[in-house]
């Protein structure tokens, strides 16, 4: 009876309000470097069979279809959209953007995943020990480590990730390291840790290491940062759609409520 309608509509409200949360997070991160937008996917719930198909009727015929009622909707998953964000010029030598599919690897806490985090945010700094570290949060160290020696006046990073430094009083640049990129079979299976760090999961598969420019890992662009790939117009359209669908479901609730009220008041003494 109408109770089913109440519950179905409630599943709709719950799923849709989660989508509003996800869209709000996307919009909040519209200016976050290397942020990847997420998308909520829905699926229908199971069906309540009131009458099975293939039942023989009084005339001896088989009914071709049964009678059923669906029980609403749920979120099947949230999917990261790893589309390339636009590369914005910053002219800062330690800002590097990836044009392609790869991720930088950084050392995070051993207790999380395999102890490594993966990020596309190439906003690097040099810490007090001369290591190249991520600019945000806890200053995670790049893997494999790259040391910028003291007295460096210029750092140049090539498209293939070779890091060269020019020290004071030297004419020629010396190579201090090579940036590596990690790729995943299923990057959408990575877990989001926040701070633009992703960690590997069983679903993502193991990282495949390669040098920039090889195996489709993408190339490195020095002096660029990858912008967030959130498209505000798209998000706002989703927000509008979601709000309307939310309202529709609240109509179902009201109608089901009225129906129950009508039925409940059938007998008045």
């Amino acid at each position, binding site marked *: 009876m109408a109770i089913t309608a109440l519950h179905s509509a409630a599943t709709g409200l719950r799923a849709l309000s989660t989508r509003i949360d996800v869209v709000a997070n996307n919009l909040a991160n519209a200016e976050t470097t290397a942020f990847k937008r997420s998308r909520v996917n829905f699926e229908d719930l199971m069906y309540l069979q009131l009458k099975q198909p293939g039942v023989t009727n009084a005339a001896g015929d088989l009914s071709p279809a049964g009678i059923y009622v669906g029980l609403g909707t749920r979120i099947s998953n949230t999917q990261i*959209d790893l589309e390339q964000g636009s590369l914005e010029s910053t002219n800062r030598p330690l800002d590097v953007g990836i044009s392609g599919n790869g991720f930088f690897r950084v050392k995070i806490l051993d207790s999380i995943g395999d102890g490594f985090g993966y990020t596309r945010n190439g906003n690097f700094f040099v810490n007090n020990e001369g290591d190249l570290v991520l600019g945000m949060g806890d200053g995670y160290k790049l893997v494999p480590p790259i040391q910028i020696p003291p007295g460096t006046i210029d750092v140049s990073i090539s498209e293939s990730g070779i890091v060269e430094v020019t020290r004071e009083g030297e004419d020629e640049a010396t190579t201090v390291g090579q940036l590596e990129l990690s790729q995943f*079979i299923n990057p*959408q299976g990575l877990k989001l840790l926040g701070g633009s760090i992703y960690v590997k999961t069983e679903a993502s598969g193991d990282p495949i290491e390669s040098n920039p420019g090889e195996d489709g890992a993408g190339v490195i662009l020095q002096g660029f940062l990858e912008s967030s790939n959130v498209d505000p117009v798209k998000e706002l359209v989703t927000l509008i759609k979601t709000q309307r669908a939310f309202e529709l479901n609240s*109509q179902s609730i009201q109608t089901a409520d009225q129906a129950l009220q009508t039925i409940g008041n059938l007998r008045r003494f």
Partner: protein
Amino acid sequence: MIYGLYLSATGVQTSAHRQDTIANNLANAETVGFKKDLSLFRQRLTEAQERRVSPGSRRPYGPLFPAAPTNLLLEPIGGGHEFQPTLIDTAQGELEPTGSPLDLAIEGGGYFAVVDSAGETRLTRNGQFAVDSQGNLTLANANGEKVLDLQRRPIRLEGGAADVYVGKDGTITQRGRAVARVGLFDAPDRRRLVKHGGTLLSFGDQPITPVPAGASAIHGGFVERANVDAATELAALMDTQRQLEANANMIRYQDQTLAKLVNEVGKIG
């Protein structure tokens, strides 16, 4: 008198059932590939007609028709209202651009085939695909049902979802090389379509056959929205609401008449 009460009750029952179906349709208004349900009614035949007792040959209490209706006056009155098997409206949903290369939408007839966790082949119009850690093309949901090609084999993408392009005929091109072809399947009797939840469908025991080449088109970077039209559903919801109330009122009136009959007629003094 009592018979009329039952007729009105079937009206309330079917209206409440239709509300449940509409609530499910509205809850799934944002579910990709969802096909809405049509909750249909029909006039119930009189009991005599259902039992195939023609009025001319009726012999109440006779040996031939032991269960023939006892009240001849009820013969010309219908039997009220009953459900007809729930039908799935397979009308085309709108195609919405997403820009994601693994989002596929079907224009025309046919379904994607996937294998569920029990090894059963299921059909779906939901083309939101992902790649698992082994490189298999799967549905982007918690179960990750594997998507089948035309020969009903799982589709494997080398190196994951990178650089994938899907053509109109379902051919998946990766780095300029055709690697697989997504299968589209259909069966002749659409009334046999059964929903299994999670946007999965099947044709029961009816065999499925590949859709002839060129009959339907696959669009990469698009998803098919649910074919739920808010205006139609809300109008149906209002209509159903009033129908339910009308029948509930009829119950009340008959109850009052009955009360009068029982309590007042024949009252002495």
